[in-house]
């Protein structure tokens, strides 16, 4: 009940946030120099024709009127058409987003699955060999840029060792993708029992996911370690020890839950960022996600596509933070609605 109330309240708070975001996106793309009308015309177009096109695109109306027309369209799910792919931007994004979502979510889960225990172990066995190894890994992870790591992994694991397939996208060239249900190849191929597609897409996911996970893992481990150290030094942990609570329970029951609070915000930040698509990694691995779509749209000045992408990225960011806020609310009783 308390939770429902909180979620309701947070959802209501999203409305002004998203309205603000839409105003910013609209304004920026309309005050930027350059007239989109010229994208539709040739050298020999007459001023009359230009005026007609301006009118057709609604660009002659005052800016606030244009905004409301655009907002109305957006609310109906119409983000306009892409000049480059000549398809609806909404459709373009819906088709590409699962690729980004699948890769970044897998990478984040892998980073969490490794980073959290590594950080905890580092803190519990502070200054031991395991702490030293973990600190080495994290130092490497924060110092190495993802594009370099991606290329290195491709060189070693594909080109030299042939363990993983070439960076040719989400699935082998000769394998047909699974029937689209969610757009996530792993899920769809599992649901339809298409093992060939499953293994091929898993293999193709491996390198970009490992690259992204290694880069993401480093700061998560660091934060987890310092947060855990702080909690382990706290009075209530000392008190639990004084009450004869065994170490294992101290670590996993008393300390871990408290120690997870601080890194949670960071994870949200990272995930929100990743969901907007990693332009660099999607390019290196020929990954057909929204990051690459955005990059291509920017290069050819495809305004509708860029606008649609920015809006989607902003909405995803806000949603991730909503989820994290709800998680905090569930974990930490000190937060009240």
């Amino acid at each position: 009940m308390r939770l429902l109330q909180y979620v309701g309240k947070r959802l209501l708070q999203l409305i002004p946030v998203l309205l603000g975001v839409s105003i910013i996106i609209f304004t920026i793309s309309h005050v930027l120099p350059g007239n989109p009308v010229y994208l539709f015309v040739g050298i020999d177009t007459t001023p009359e024709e230009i005026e007609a096109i301006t009118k057709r695109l609604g660009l002659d109306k005052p800016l606030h009127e244009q905004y409301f027309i655009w907002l109305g369209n957006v609310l109906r799910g119409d983000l306009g058409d892409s000049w480059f792919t000549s398809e609806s931007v909404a459709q373009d994004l819906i088709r590409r987003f699962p690729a980004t979502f699948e890769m970044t979510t897998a990478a984040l889960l892998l980073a969490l699955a490794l980073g959290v225990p590594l950080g905890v172990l580092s803190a519990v066995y502070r200054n031991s060999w395991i702490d030293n190894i973990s600190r080495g890994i994290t130092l490497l992870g924060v110092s190495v840029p993802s594009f370099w790591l991606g290329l290195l992994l491709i060189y070693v694991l594909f080109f030299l060792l042939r363990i993983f397939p070439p960076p040719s996208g989400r699935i082998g060239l000769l394998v047909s993708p699974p029937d689209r249900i969610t757009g996530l190849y792993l899920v769809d191929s599992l649901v339809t029992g298409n093992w060939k597609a499953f293994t091929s897409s898993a293999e193709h996911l491996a390198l970009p996911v490992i690259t992204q996970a290694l880069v993401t893992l480093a700061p998560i481990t660091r934060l987890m370690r310092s947060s855990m150290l702080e909690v382990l030094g706290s009075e209530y942990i000392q008190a639990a020890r004084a009450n004869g609570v065994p170490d294992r329970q101290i670590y996993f029951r008393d300390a871990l839950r408290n120690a997870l609070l601080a890194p949670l915000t960071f994870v949200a930040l990272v995930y929100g960022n990743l969901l907007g698509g990693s332009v660099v990694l999607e390019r290196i691995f020929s990954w057909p996600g929204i990051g690459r779509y955005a990059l291509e749209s920017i290069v050819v000045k495809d305004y509708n596509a860029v606008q649609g992408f920015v809006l989607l990225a902003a909405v995803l960011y806000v949603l991730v933070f909503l989820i994290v806020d709800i998680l905090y609310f569930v974990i930490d009783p000190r937060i009240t609605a």
Partner: protein
Amino acid sequence: MIEVRNSDTLLEVRGLHTYFYTYEGVVKAVNSVSYKLNRGEITGLVGESGSGKSVTAQSIIRLVKAPGRIVEGEVWLDGQDLMSCSEAEMQTVRGRKISMIFQEPRAALNPLFTVGDQISRVIQLREGCSRSVAENQAVEMMRAVEIADPDRRASAYPHELSGGMCQRVMVAMALSANPLLLIADEPTTGLDVTVQAQVLDLIRLRVKSAGSACLFITHDLGVVAELCERVIVMYAGRVVEQGPVAEIFSNPRHPYTQGLIASTLRVDIDKPISTIPGTVPDAVHLPSGCTFHPRCPFAEELCQQEEPQMVEAGRDHTTRCHIVSGRIEREMLEEAWTLETA
């Protein structure tokens, strides 16, 4: 030294040394400390902050935080040498034979669990009983420490309770064990005076009725006079004086104890409050000889050169001072303290 084996002795600490290895140097937080606690008695452990009171307590239950380490010493609890116990054995001593009450009740409770959960968990660990039995027992314990409406309060989180209420929860948790030894580390700091009196009453009642011993750490001599049978005075990691409360308060022999008593506010006598000049010495660079000599109004050359030994100063009353031992012939005048501040 003749060893008197007293059957009433519950805890005996012998030659305890706990050092902290810091970058600046070795801090001898507890330096050759020895004392005994008797069953059914509350012993006050007093001294200024940094005198090693809390570290003494942490050493007894072997929970000294890094970079601290127990270097030497024996701690005998009811015939068991705690220093030679394994860590697993220690876990069965903590929370069963020895319970501890902490200074900051709210900080000593885990913010993410309800207080009922935290008490019943300790009970469950100890008794190995079912969860519901432990929960019932937790509510009973909360009732016993006079928490009103314990059923409802059990499902409250620490941040929802007042400091005094949290301290009662800590007391309930500590006493649920029926411990042989209760260590209370400044349990009433930060509480209202009325709540403070109630918490002290609770502790006294339980210790007396259960025949356990209590080590009561405080810097409040008023509380010691009211609550304790015996008192141990620590200064810079050493015990400087110990004995029965009545004896120490009426006839303090160590200059430091005299200073402490002189500096407490008395409403019944019209006298100015004095202070002990100076501060607790730098723990890394302790003064030579008697560590108190730089602040002592009676100090002479010998005090700088040689550390005094523990000597008899009365019945069951020992202290560490060259004047008391007779190596320096000098009278200690009470006026010395008022003169210092005048």
